[in-house]
């Protein structure tokens, strides 16, 4: 792996992102906005609780919005493959002096950086504004879960973005993924009170693994043994998605 090559990809992504300040603002603050509108709104106006003892809905939902943010960054970034392909630059870049894995990892590193800033900003502001009891000792795990989470979902989406040639078809795929992955998971609600079939599907959903780790890192909710298993499963999912994305990228040209 050449740091020079990956730095070039990161600088490129940064230059492109820096051309649109609205984009930066949205990237960094949308999870917090979601927490404010959805979490605070549901919490205050409808009196919902998380259903878990001693945890209000804002605290419960914080991990959900962080997971959703990683998922969102990944889908937006993988969409950039279409933009690059339409601009012709995608094929030109494949002739630049970098390996295809360096290209993919460089692309994900920039987004991991954005994801980390976004996560830390959301966590700090939710602790200050919404009084979410964030655990300081969970920060290393939170950082790790954000890095692996953003990467895993990006590689996963990249498989589809690289294989599908039509932008509208990819948009349909992402809409289905949003619906399935987000709602059949522990993102918005605890799984325990749900019907058995729903619980089973949610337990097999990688976003549940990701969100459960984030929840444990931020507020300490969940069984450490289950969270450890879910963390291992999510790392395996990320590795498999990377391999899949590499195969898809190798077939380009």
């Amino acid at each position, binding site marked *: 792996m050449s740091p020079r*090559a990956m730095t070039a990809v990161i*600088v*490129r992504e940064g230059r*492109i992102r820096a*051309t649109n300040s609205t984009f930066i603002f949205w990237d960094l603050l949308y999870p917090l906005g979601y927490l404010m509108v959805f979490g605070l709104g549901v919490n205050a106006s409808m009196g919902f609780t998380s259903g878990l003892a001693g945890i209000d809905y804002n605290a419960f939902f914080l991990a959900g919005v962080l997971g959703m943010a990683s998922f969102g960054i990944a889908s937006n970034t993988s969409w950039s493959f279409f933009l690059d392909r339409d601009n012709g630059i995608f*094929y030109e870049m494949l002739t630049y*002096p*970098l*390996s295809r894995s360096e290209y993919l990892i460089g692309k994900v590193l920039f987004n991991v950086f954005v994801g980390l800033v976004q996560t830390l900003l959301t966590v700090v502001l939710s602790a200050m504004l919404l009084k979410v009891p964030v655990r300081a000792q969970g920060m290393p795990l939170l950082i790790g879960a954000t890095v692996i989470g953003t990467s895993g979902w990006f590689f996963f989406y990249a498989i589809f973005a690289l294989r599908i040639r039509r932008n509208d078809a990819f948009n349909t795929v992402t809409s289905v993924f949003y619906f399935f992955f987000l709602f059949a998971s522990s993102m918005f609600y605890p799984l325990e009170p749900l019907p058995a079939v729903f619980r089973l599907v949610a337990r097999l959903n990688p976003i549940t693994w990701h969100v459960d780790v984030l929840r444990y890192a931020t507020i300490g909710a969940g069984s450490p043994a289950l969270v450890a298993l879910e963390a291992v499963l999510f790392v395996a999912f990320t590795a498999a998605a990377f391999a899949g994305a590499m195969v898809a990228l190798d077939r380009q040209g």
Partner: protein
Amino acid sequence: MSDTAIRVENLVKVYRPRGTAEIRAVDDLSFTVERGSIFGLLGPNGAGKTTTLRVLTTLVRPTSGFAEVLGHDVVRAPLEVRKRIGVVVQEHAAELLLSVRANLLTFARFHGQAGAAVRKRAGDVMDQFGLAEVAERKVQDLSGGVRRRVQVAKMFMVDVPVVFLDEFSSGMDPILKRAVMDLLRAQAIGGRTIVLTTQILTEAEELCDDILIINRGRQVARGNINALKLLTERLYDVTLSFDRVPDALSTVLAAYQATAVTVDHNTVQLRLKEDESRVLELVSVLAKNGRVLRVEISGGSLEDVFVELTQKGEAAT
């Protein structure tokens, strides 16, 4: 150090699109390119030029055969190849959201170059390509021709020894095209190897030291411009201007092998496949049938060679 920059042996690339018959885009192609030369890869649409370039630039893997750039196998050592090449792909390729300057600097960074010297070089390159006035404008706001200029200008930001240009002049105005051709020639004199594809044959005729004509993925002809023109011996372009085109023109021409005849007002243009003496005889016969104001006879151009050879290939299949 070998004098060969590129070596291609028995290269085959077959595409197998789902649900349709396989396409043999490159079919047993072999050639070499000398260092510091300008090599033209010519052929009609679908001849396999771009596929050959895509193999050489490591974008696609060949089905079989072998290709190397500066001694590095395009399949086994693609990264080593990429470190030594610059590519202008056929599609318009630019970072649309970035400024012209940022496009040049971003490209240079991928080749490991950054800092004040590169920024200065970007200024010089923009001056050479007439881009200085739009240096800070986003490429998405520029015309297609200017975008193409940015794309070609990037090749002058780095000193890679081999440059591939796929239809580089598309969308360029004639003045800029001439300037770029001069720059390319200077680069080749400086030792850079340039491989280009083009359908504009005058471009190849002016630029290329060595030309390979392919059709249906196979070699049709190979050599420098003079060697290729020998292939069109007995092929002449004749232009005659009369004060009035003779009524007997078609009767006279019936006795000769004219492969193309155009009449525009009082000017007749002929392409003849005849011996030189027969061509002169025809001019003399026509002169007896009308007052000739101007006569121009020239040997076949590269375009004639191209049409002749590719049509021969089509007829043979």
